[in-house]
């Protein structure tokens, strides 16, 4: 029962290197899905909670409302879509399929922030490797 092929045919880049962004997009699959076997221990993993913070906030709160109102007040209504179209520069990930559009500033900024946070979480790899 061999399957036809590996990851090559579809992925834009199937090299084994994994950019933080590419890994970030599937982090929750690796950490939160996958098979669990009751009799095994799942180690409590430092940092998983950090990732979950990123889940979309419940919308119904006065704080959220005020943030929405402020964002709306700030809009330059005449300008329309003013943000320059730019291709997001996250490329070369192990499993990226390249279906990326473009975004305006607000969301890109937020996503970048999240990736930074994860970067912090992953931090120390190199140092520890040197220590060993």
């Amino acid at each position: 029962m061999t399957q036809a092929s590996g990851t090559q045919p579809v992925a834009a880049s199937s090299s084994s290197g994994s950019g933080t962004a590419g890994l970030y997009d599937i982090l929750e699959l690796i950490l939160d899905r996958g098979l669990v076997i009751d009799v095994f221990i799942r180690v409590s993993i430092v940092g998983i909670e950090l990732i979950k913070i990123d889940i979309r906030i419940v919308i119904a709160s006065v704080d959220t409302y005020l943030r929405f109102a402020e964002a709306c007040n700030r809009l330059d209504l005449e300008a329309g879509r003013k943000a320059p179209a730019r291709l997001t520069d996250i490329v070369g990930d192990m499993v990226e399929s390249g279906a990326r559009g473009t975004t305006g500033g607000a969301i890109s900024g937020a996503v970048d922030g999240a990736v930074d946070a994860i970067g912090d979480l992953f931090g120390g790899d190199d140092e520890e490797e040197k220590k060993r």
Partner: protein
Amino acid sequence: MSDVPTNPSPAEQAASEPAPDSPLYIYAITGSDHPLRLDGLRTVGGIGGSLSAVVRGGLAAVVSPAPPELRPKRRDLTAHQELQERLMADGAVLPMRFGMLAPDSATVGRALEEKSEEYTRRLAELHGTTEFNLKAARAQDDLLREVLSESEEARRLNQLTRDGNGTHEDRVALGELLARQVDARQRLMAEQVVQQLSSLARARVEGAPAKDDFLNVSFLVARAQAHEFTEAGQRLARDFGEGYDFRLRGPLPPYSFAA
């Protein structure tokens, strides 16, 4: 082991059994007819130790000595992921969630025996399939502009509260209206996207979208249709156009469909 069959399976030939009484990290379950090409792969926990397999009946569990400390570091998550990719290239695989440990190989063997039927059935169901995960976001400013252009009340409240004017109540009212509208529009977009891709998928699992995303969905897709699926995803991203951010990842190990 008393239950070793007379003809060793490919899995047994490919990978040695682990030391009997040391704790193990478990990566995945495959059929014992899987070739388990494990050479050159890194282990979770890094340097030292090697990958091996616990084989029972028609099943094999890929394991390595458990690292003394386990944290979801990029290196370890990547090792876990790369092993799944290697395995899925040669056959069906049930990827474990990151971080599963067993006290010894006998426990792993018993776990395989206890749910042998279930795992065998899942492997058969997942044979020839792969997972795609799609996350999508839309620029918030675009969404807000859309709401403003379609809601007179939103325009009125926005006018009233601009430049620090208006009452706290006005601002909350504006925000609440926007939040509701944004939420409704995001749900609608999510439905449209899922609907457009579902015909090419055998199953799907929707997850909670992360902040700013309006969609986080995994599809189980036949390997033979993986290319077609990717093209459909790219087409969809093009059709939605500027101001949207679609991140399609795959082919992936079937994390969302293994349980």
